């Protein structure tokens, strides 16, 4: 039976074709084997992309935004993520995380990481207890001393808590390259499971001392600000990806930045933060496929520096 092709039918067909081409890219999940890293102190495997909550999960009592963030967290878990990092410093982020975990009933998928952030060195357990209540969990997988605030007393208390089985791993954090000298001395002197620091294609100071030291001392490394707080996108996403990006396993700028970070052999996990499901999918795309080799890493850094 012959069908007449009218202008209207043609336009509808054209729109449908366009939509069908868009949908796969919106719905697509990264496929392939997930990149995992080993926590040196235990041998436990950890997916190489985690999720930060700085600025993104502090939405107060805004149910509309809590629902949106819950969808972001669901996408993260669905695509194989486990490590979620927060801090008492981040306003209502812990409460929002607790509500999202309640909604998703997904605490069994979670590797929970938070921080102790108080100048009162005697308040370690009290703050840990408050955070556990907000997250709705019995114990944290990882507790870290935030930005080295009162670190001696907090670290001592956390080590005791680890010995008592109240937390599984212990670490310290810094960001923006602050207090790297103190950070290095603590890494050398204290038994740590994790450190958290800033490292990305532009902020590479950690390559000089901290990352090699982490490898040498068998300390897992969590990388914060892998997108430099979003400024890498603002600066570079108007530029095209280099033609050789796919050879380095990168299909978009998110993968470009994250795979640069993840391909350093000392890095265990990067924790980008986002408020959008689409961005979460892009981020999780960096956890599959090949990682750039040393030559490609150098080329990536040169390319960005030259833009």
């Amino acid at each position, binding site marked *: 039976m012959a069908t007449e092709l009218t202008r209207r039918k043609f336009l509808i067909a054209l729109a449908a074709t366009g939509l069908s081409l868009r949908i796969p890219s919106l719905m697509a999940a990264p496929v392939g084997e997930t990149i995992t890293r080993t926590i040196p102190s235990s041998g436990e495997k950890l997916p190489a992309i985690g999720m930060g909550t700085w600025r993104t999960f502090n*939405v107060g009592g805004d149910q509309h935004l809590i629902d949106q963030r819950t969808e972001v967290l669901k996408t993260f878990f669905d695509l194989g993520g486990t490590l979620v990092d927060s801090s008492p410093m981040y306003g209502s982020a812990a409460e929002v995380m607790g509500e999202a975990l309640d909604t998703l009933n997904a605490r069994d998928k979670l590797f929970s990481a938070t921080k102790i952030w108080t100048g009162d060195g005697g308040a370690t357990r009290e703050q840990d207890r408050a955070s556990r209540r907000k997250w709705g969990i019995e114990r944290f997988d990882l507790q870290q001393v935030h930005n080295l605030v009162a670190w001696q007393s907090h670290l001592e208390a956390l080590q005791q808590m680890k010995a008592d089985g109240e937390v599984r791993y212990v670490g310290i954090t810094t960001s923006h390259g602050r207090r790297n000298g103190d950070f290095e001395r603590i890494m050398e002197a204290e038994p740590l499971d994790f450190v958290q620091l800033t490292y990305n294609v532009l902020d590479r100071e950690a390559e000089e001392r901290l990352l090699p030291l982490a490898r040498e001392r068998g300390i897992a490394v969590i990388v914060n600000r892998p997108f430099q707080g979003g400024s890498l996108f603002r600066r570079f996403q108007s530029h095209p990806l280099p033609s050789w990006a796919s050879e380095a396993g990168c299909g978009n700028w998110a993968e470009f930045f994250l795979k640069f970070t993840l391909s350093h052999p000392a890095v265990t996990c990067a924790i980008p933060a986002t*408020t959008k499901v689409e961005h979460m999918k892009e981020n999780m795309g960096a956890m599959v496929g090949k990682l750039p080799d040393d030559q490609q890493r150098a080329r990536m850094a040169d390319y960005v520096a030259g833009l």
Partner: protein
Amino acid sequence: MDTNWLSYSLSDFLMFGPEVFLRLFVRINQDIWPWQVIAVIMVVAIGALLVRGDVLARRGILLLVAAAWLWSGAGFLIEYYGPINTPATWFGWAFVLQGALLTVVALVWRWDTVAGQSGAARWSAGIGWVVIMGLSPLLTVAQSGSWHSVALFAVTPSVTALGAVPCMLVLPRRIRWLFLLLPLVWGLFSVATLWTLGTRVLVVVPATTLALVVLALLFSPRRAQNRG
């Protein structure tokens, strides 16, 4: 131990983005609907009382401004803004305190003299005040692109502070400064917050508040007329 404070920027202390901040206005407007009409009536009433200008009108102005401090402090700042930004809670309590103190002053203050302003000046003040209170709420609309985010006097803190400062001119300078401290500190805090958030359009309101605070501190009636 080196704390490297100089390496910190304002953005390091801001734990939320512009989306969450602008949603505060949408949420409070949704939650209090249709009581925004009270805020609009307050604006018109203050404008009318500024035109009238006698002692009774002054008491009325101060009571309405006091109510605006109380409403915006206990509502917007403590209930909505505080959960995402702790200093907002502290400001909320300061707004409440300011409202309570202003209520007392409005009820007990004895005006020995009042400025002898002309009718034209009082009309200009009243109409000008209402126009500014009508236009400044639209800046959040311009910033967010949504009418639901309109920032009304008495409901939201920055427009309340902006509107309150000129009203303090009804007080003698010897106590006026006391009620200009909070708008001054709030203005500085808001300018820093909004600039860091990148919501530059909204900076106009607290920046204007700061300028008005300076003018209000300097302003002295040209002549006073004893109404003994």
